[in-house]
């Protein structure tokens, strides 16, 4: 019965501790903003924050998350008002939108750690996230804008 704290709310789950956090969030807690893309930690669609660090929830077990603070896209900003979300809207980043929660969570973690990232730091931090629509140029623009606003 793992106890999980997600977006500040504590949940007691009747689940196998080896279940990936991704599926616990999506199927057991109905938090479906966190997306399934590959199941092997290769695409970043499932990124959430674990005690403030970006992790891939498809290869993070429930057991790994117990006792830590899980933050998902649904908890990132009230009504989408986190600086990264606002920058994403201003740059009209999304096309299909499916990978964007993972991209946004990765970007938010980057800016938390490195408030004024260089172009190279942005590229390094975001290279684990795949967008098949090809929104990368606007992702860079949005991260620079969010960093400038936070400064």
């Amino acid at each position, binding site marked *: 019965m793992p106890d999980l704290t997600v977006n500040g709310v504590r949940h007691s789950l009747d689940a196998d501790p080896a279940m990936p956090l991704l599926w616990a969030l999506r*199927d057991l807690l*109905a938090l479906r903003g966190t997306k399934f893309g*590959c199941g092997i930690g290769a695409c970043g669609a499932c990124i959430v924050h674990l005690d403030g660090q970006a992790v891939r929830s498809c290869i993070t077990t429930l057991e790994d998350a117990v006792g830590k603070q899980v933050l998902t896209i649904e908890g990132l900003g009230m009504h989408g008002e986190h600086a990264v979300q606002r920058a994403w809207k201003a740059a009209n980043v*999304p096309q*299909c939108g499916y990978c964007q929660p993972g991209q946004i969570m990765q970007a938010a973690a980057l800016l938390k750690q490195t408030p004024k990232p260089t172009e190279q730091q942005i590229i390094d931090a975001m290279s684990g996230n795949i967008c*098949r629509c090809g*929104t990368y140029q606007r992702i860079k623009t949005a991260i620079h804008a969010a960093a400038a606003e936070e400064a």
Partner: protein
Amino acid sequence: MSKLENLSRRHVLKGIALSRFMLGARVATWSPIDQAGAEPASFAPNLFVAIAPTGQVTIVVSRSEMGTGIRTSLAMVLADELDADWQSVRVEQAQGDAKYGDQNTDGSKSIRLLLNTMRDAGAAARHMLVTAAAHRWGVAPSACHTEAGAVVLGASGKRLGYGELAEDAAKLPVPPPASVPLKSRAAWRYIGKPVPIVDLDDIVQGTAVFGIDVMLPGMKHASVERPPSYGGRVNSYDATEALKVPGVERVVEIPGAPPPSGFLPLGGIAVIAGNTWAAMQGRQKLRIDWEPGPNADYDTSDYRAALEATARQPGKVARENGDVDRALQVASKHVSADYFVPHLAHATMEPESCTAVFVDGACTVWAATQNPQQARRTVAELLDIKQSAVTVNVTLLGGGFGRKSKPDYVAEAAFLARAVGAPVKVTWTREDDLVHGYYHAIAAQHLEGGLDANGKPVAWLHRTVFPSIGSTFTAGTVYGSAGELSQGVVDMPFDIPNVRCENGRADAHVRIGWYRSVYNIPHAFAVGSFVDELAAAAEKDPVQFLLSVLGEPRKLDPKLLGSAYSNYGASLDEYPIDIGRMRNVVLLAAARSGWGSPLPTRHGRGIAVHRSFLTYVAAVAHVAVAADGTVTMPRIDLAVDCGMVVNPDRVAAQFEGAAIMGLGNALYSSLTFKQGRAEQSNFADYQGPRIDATPETHVYVVRSEASPGGVGEPGVPPVSAAICNAISNAVGRRVRALPVDPAELKSA
């Protein structure tokens, strides 16, 4: 935009509240539309618009949203003619129903097909609202005009909101189709403006609902083990261990259709569980004895050699002008080249997923589908029920690229929902997606050209050999269709007197399907590369050579192309092959890219131009080739003439994305097969561009009042040729097979 409803979000996130709809026959009539967000309309003059007394305007979009922004763009068009207040507009996604006409969101044609329909629908509603207001005021309609969301009486200052007029307007006769005058372009309020997409807030908050996000009370989760190669089937299976996995409830065999299986499922064993992970775990414990079927030996290295051998032999003639054999014989210079493009996979970020429920003989599905009417037909066929007993609700699509035009995964969910007697969601893994796809055709091409003594091309021979998409649907299909050969072969635009285009025979051993830009990918690569090779042979600058071989601005004479030329289903009168527009994008791309300006060593520029989906695109790629052969693209410039534009920001976005997909096609992506099975199975080995590969991308859209062309696909085809031409310019090595092999480009 704040009032725009996220239609699908509420009904799904509030899944628990839905439970009452899940009981009994109400399922079949339950609407995907969020009834809580939708205010009851009192005026609905046609299929596409409804107005509530509150003033809320509901616009129905019948095409699927996979990232092009179509839900926004079509709504903008109707809202414009209606003179709606955009803040009062909500977008409703249509179910799959023939009453909407063509809903197959494929072929970059949504705006082309629906521009006038949406304009007429908005104009008719506006006309009726104006008439209702005029009656109310006792004046002639001509004394009234509209402002955003209201009818206004001359200069009197009197105004009535659309909501206030809705009930009266509903009592008026609906004007005959296309009878109401449309606005002048100058009066357009939304068309041509960069309107943010209606789903933007939901996407960045993680509340947008894709197919994989649908959740129903009591829903089961399914993961399906499918045959190892195309046409394989289950001999026997043992589910004992699978059933021991906690959460696994049962297994169900899905019958597979033999090749050509069309849109029907491949068959296999489904594990049904209480959550997705348990279903996947259980599936790994299945023991299945497979009948390998007819394609278990498929090997793409052998197949490639066979295609290339076929391309060296004469094929079926698809276009012939003049006498190419003689012209090649007498040419001063003879150039010949062979090109190869591998299988590609769509690899949409959202894997195939569908949720279905079957109650009282009727099936309702919620699917990320590009083609809801086909989903309806396929479900009806597999379940042997009437189409009227199938309801297809369309969610957002996490990418489409053609994969989600094929509803095999929808039919799986429908079959399982009936078998299980509960709502079932089928979720494909990434491995399923890559190993059981409808693949982009592998293709081999052979080109020959002749130059006269002045370096002018006088002969063009193009042979293309590829498995046809028709092979997925019709047994014995071994040649390309007219439509396939109209994608960059017979529509070769150059002013060359002697031309022959041929198509060689090829059998298919996997499901071949549409992939963004389809056969334009191999053909634009070969044609765009070969014309650059001719420029080199003629010792001419590639841009100057391209302009000279395109010839004078003119409409290409359709007689040159032959009667089978399909022009994307459009008339050549409205959409001619306009060499002037083609030249114009070449000049624009060259000028903006700094063509001819100096570059560092092992950097180069290349250009390619291609017309597809009725749109003209020229690409100038700037590449850098490292000493180890690694190719990067620091910059790409795309000049686009797609006719009139509805939403310029979304048009730019589509071409930015096309540059990335084209880059992936050129440098990274390839699917190979051994023993009938794809050798790549996830993003670790099926590669695409990531942010570190992203070029500085410039998109220039020609201002035009021409009829709208396509936007989603036409940016992709010229990119790979532009890149390979740039590589040649950078290091003097010609790449003729994709993806580019860095080992061939190492510095000596």
